[in-house]
């Protein structure tokens, strides 16, 4: 950043969403989120935190303060590799990785995730394939991913892809389960349900919200 952009970084209470923390904390085991003392162990353990726009600790602070927009549109959640190092070392037993997944889900639901970033695109492609076939086929997954994010990458990866093909480690044959209808009926029941409860759902369940 070489040129000063003249941005004003003040936040008014009306910019924030005070119920954001309760929504995230509604996942099973999520209540420990309120106990965060901002020690920074999570960011210190995270092998990817040097690359994140907001470190895991900052994300928790922002969730507690209600910075919904910033958290859900950050790159951080999509850089999380789910290694669970943070969760294991957190002195307050906060389920950080599960919180990261919850923010991923809310970002997708709210369509505010970084659109051409590979991770959410990969997740989406994977999701569609398994919804339909019950299994994922790595070759098609990668092709679809590159086509949607950066088609030129397909050429770069070609060498790797061909080598894998030659070793029998990649095939264009579609993997699928036999009883696709059975899986479809199971997943259909869960179409509209979510583990992260919205503010209205929390209030009607009698839970205390901010």
């Amino acid at each position, binding site marked *: 950043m070489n040129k000063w952009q003249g941005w004003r970084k003040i936040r008014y209470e009306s910019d924030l969403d005070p119920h954001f923390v309760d929504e995230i904390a509604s996942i099973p085991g999520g209540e420990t989120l309120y106990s965060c003392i901002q020690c920074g162990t999570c960011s210190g353990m995270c092998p990817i935190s040097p690359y994140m726009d907001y470190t895991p600790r900052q994300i928790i602070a922002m969730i507690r303060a209600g910075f919904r927009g910033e958290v859900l549109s950050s790159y951080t959640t999509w850089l999380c590799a789910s290694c*669970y190092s943070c969760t294991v070392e957190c002195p307050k037993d906060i389920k950080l990785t599960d919180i990261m*997944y919850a923010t991923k889900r809310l970002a997708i639901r709210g369509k505010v995730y970084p659109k051409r970033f590979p991770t*959410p695109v990969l997740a989406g492609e*994977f999701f569609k394939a398994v919804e339909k076939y019950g299994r994922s086929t790595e070759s098609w997954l990668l092709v679809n991913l590159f086509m949607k994010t950066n088609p030129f990458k397909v050429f770069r990866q070609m060498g790797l892809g061909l*080598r894998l093909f030659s070793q029998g*480690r990649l095939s264009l044959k579609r*993997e699928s*389960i036999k*009883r696709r209808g059975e899986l479809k*009926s199971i997943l259909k029941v869960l179409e509209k349900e979510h583990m992260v409860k919205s503010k209205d759902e929390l209030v009607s369940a009698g839970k205390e919200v901010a």
Partner: protein
Amino acid sequence: MSYIYYPGCSLKSTGRAYEESLLTVFDALDVPLKELEDWNCCGATAYMSISELKAFALSARNFALAERQNGEEDYAEMVVPCAACYLGLNKAHRYLAEHPELRETIDRALEAGGLKYNDRVHVRHPLDVLINDLAPDKIKALVKRPLEGLKVACYYGCQLVRPYADFDDQHDPQTMDKIVKMLGGEVVDWPLKTRCCGGSLTGIVQDVGLRLSYILLAEARKRGCDLIVTACPLCQFNLECYQSRISGIYGHKINIPVIYFTQLMGHAFGLSDEKLGLKRVFVSPSRAFSKAEGGQHVHG
């Protein structure tokens, strides 16, 4: 005890060698493994990112199918070699047991598919089975080509020991180390045995992911390892398949074989390269094996 084998999508594709060597080795050890009929994908990290309930439902379907396949016997022992599938299934197993509200939702979903889950499943990793279920000397008894002098770095990765440490120590796991020692190899102790390799980022966000894999490869090389063994298909892929790219970016020539622990076992048992998927490698372990044999390794 008989086991139900859950391969997961990777073992039919990039991780094919893992399946081949696993089945071969378990067969040699006389441990029956039968593939789960019509198993579906565990959902990996992708499903958790989009719909956690569907992710749990995917695992639950596998549990229901395993129970059905197991019949009237006590518990279905599901052997899950892929670390990501292992974590996904293990997590689902625990969440379904510990959160009744969630369980009720998933039961409803399973019912729509005509299935039922009765809590009679154990999720096991092959390392767990090998160390805890087999008689102590069974592995040693099969060793025909002991790996004397071979320096091996055991790489566990994340998902086997975090967040659940069901069969091994969370910070300093030893199950793979024990197996390597049983095979006669020399285990190189290193502090990065559970540090993330980058997972899916290594392939798709290479600016970030490659460095994580590079750190592991560089440290293993620095400590004089001839070989890295791993238990996760994505770790194996990341560590093995990008070595030339990594060498280019970091100006550090790295050429170190990365194989599955089952492949190492099979090799020590004297089994053929073909049966162990040892032809499906980017960096051949022949030179490392020769070192152990004090001469030329003959492709068997």
